[in-house]
């Protein structure tokens, strides 16, 4: 049988083979980029975005700290970039995010309690807010949730004057505005500046969607008023929180705020995790505790408008 020839002549065959090899090479390169390099780039991009968020939340904390310190009714704005864009030309998914204010009704049983308890006369400007209706001072917060596609979902929560960074396997905290003073040989004084957030209906939550993943919103904050009742000889200060590990590390972890007093047995710090939410209790041991708690009301609004 005679062999059938596809090409009558073999001239220019090398060009065809070369073109096929080149196309195969380009296809391999693009597939490699798409399968290996692009996920790495997107992971990097999402990590960079989380760093940016950490920076922005730290600015928010600075702004609120300045407002509580100066007690000036000046509006300050802090930007939050909610998500992250897709890469052009390649198949990628942009990440999204959500920022919200958790007011006194949203935080459930998360609160600051003292014994003896504060009453309306201690915090007269907050009597409508929590003294009568709630047991303790609600631990209001500003919360950012990242919905990432290439790295773990992160959460940043600004509560009790501290920033909690929550990842699936760990909780970290930028320390709250607590100053400890060894007043005498038998007494320490805790100065605690606690921001209390109030929100505005319709302006308390903002999310980015797939249409505008990198939406940047502004959190406007304004100082309103404060009460600072001193308490001598408290028998306990309790912080009821969903982030007990972060608070514990912040107080008695490495470089903890109360680590030296705890190690010297001046005070006791106990975690009670049998109830939900768990709480951490600071109580006197060899030394008495005086507490100067300054509660500042901060109006928070996400997006444009007048903040009162």
């Amino acid at each position, binding site marked *: 049988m005679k062999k059938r020839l596809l090409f009558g002549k*073999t001239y220019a*065959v*090398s*060009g*065809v*083979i*070369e073109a096929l*090899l*080149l196309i195969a*090479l380009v296809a391999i390169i693009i597939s490699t980029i798409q399968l290996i*390099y692009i996920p*790495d*780039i997107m992971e*990097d991009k999402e990590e960079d975005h989380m*760093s940016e968020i*950490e*920076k922005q939340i*730290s600015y928010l*904390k*600075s702004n609120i*700290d*300045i407002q*509580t*310190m*100066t007690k000036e009714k000046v509006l300050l704005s802090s930007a939050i970039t909610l998500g992250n864009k897709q890469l052009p030309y390649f198949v990628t998914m942009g990440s999204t995010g959500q920022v919200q204010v958790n007011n006194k009704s949203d935080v459930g049983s998360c609160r600051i309690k003292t014994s003896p308890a504060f009453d309306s006369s201690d915090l007269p400007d907050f009597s409508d807010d929590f003294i009568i209706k709630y047991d303790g001072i609600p631990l209001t917060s500003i919360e950012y949730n990242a919905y990432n596609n290439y790295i773990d979902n992160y959460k940043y929560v600004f509560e009790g004057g501290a920033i909690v960074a929550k990842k699936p396997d760990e909780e970290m905290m*930028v*320390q709250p*505005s*607590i*100053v400890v003073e060894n007043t005498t040989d038998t007494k320490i004084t805790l*100065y605690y*500046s606690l921001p209390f957030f109030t929100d505005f209906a319709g302006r308390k939550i903002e999310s980015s969607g797939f249409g505008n993943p990198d939406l940047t919103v502004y959190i406007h904050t304004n100082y309103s008023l404060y009460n600072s009742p001193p308490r001598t000889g408290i028998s306990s200060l309790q912080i009821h929180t969903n982030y007990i590990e972060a608070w514990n590390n912040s107080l008695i972890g490495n*470089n903890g705020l109360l*680590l*030296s007093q705890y190690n010297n047995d001046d005070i006791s710090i106990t975690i009670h995790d049998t109830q939900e939410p768990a709480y951490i209790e600071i109580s006197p041991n060899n030394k008495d505790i005086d507490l100067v708690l*300054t509660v500042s009301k901060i109006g928070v609004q996400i997006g444009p408008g007048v903040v009162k």
Partner: protein
Amino acid sequence: MKAIVLVKDKTAVAGVIEFILLIAMFAIILALIQVFYIPEIMAQDESENMEEISNQFSRLKTMIDIQSKKESEIPLSTRIPFGNKQLPYFVTVPSSGYLSIVDRDITDSYIEINDQYYVDLTDIKYKADNAYFTHQDYIYEGGGVIIKQPEGNPVMWQNPSFNASPMRDQHLDVNNIVMYFDIPVLVCKDHDNFGGGYSSCYITTNYSDELSDSNWNYLPNFSNITIKSDYSIAWFKFINKTFEKDVKQNISFYRGSDFLEIREKGGIPINFYYRKKCIFTRID
């Protein structure tokens, strides 16, 4: 001698050779990117990181200024990034940074006024360990921010609260000079005074009236002030640049490698006011 023929059928050999050459060219391009382009990108990254650190030191100074002014004990935190990341897939070296607080217990710098009144000169130092961009140190000292590079002299980038004004009589002649100096003194509790690595940290500061002067200390017979600092050249340039001509005509400078002395020339009296502000500082 007869040549050995490896490929008997020479059909399409040119295409294969061209393909191999293309791969070689691709490898050469990658090598060129690694050798020339990647260092440029990394230097740019490190330069941006330095810019971020300079912004944060500026913010730190603002925070301490506000705390001193308001005399508020509420702590404020300032984030300091340490370094930047490597690039994926290419051979790169990450940069890192080290932060230290030289507080009043460990400093050997000081300010001495009239050879009699002594105030510790304390620092917050950031040392960048860059791999591609020039090494830079940022130093918060005496209320100012100084930048230091291996080449050249340190520069006072953010001025401290040290100023002098000539006071004039009705004929507009200078009849006395007033100088004001707000001096922050950093104090560390429990020696939380060092941090470093590749990520970030927070410097938390709060004012304390424990060691602070609530009022100005007034020295009507000012004769001299000595600033003992490793950055005396930065202090000299700052004073020389910011003090008015009428002030500079009535003072003389003596500068060594680690000190700067300002002495009155005699003639026009100088009224000197200074105030210590105690700032508790820690690295979280």
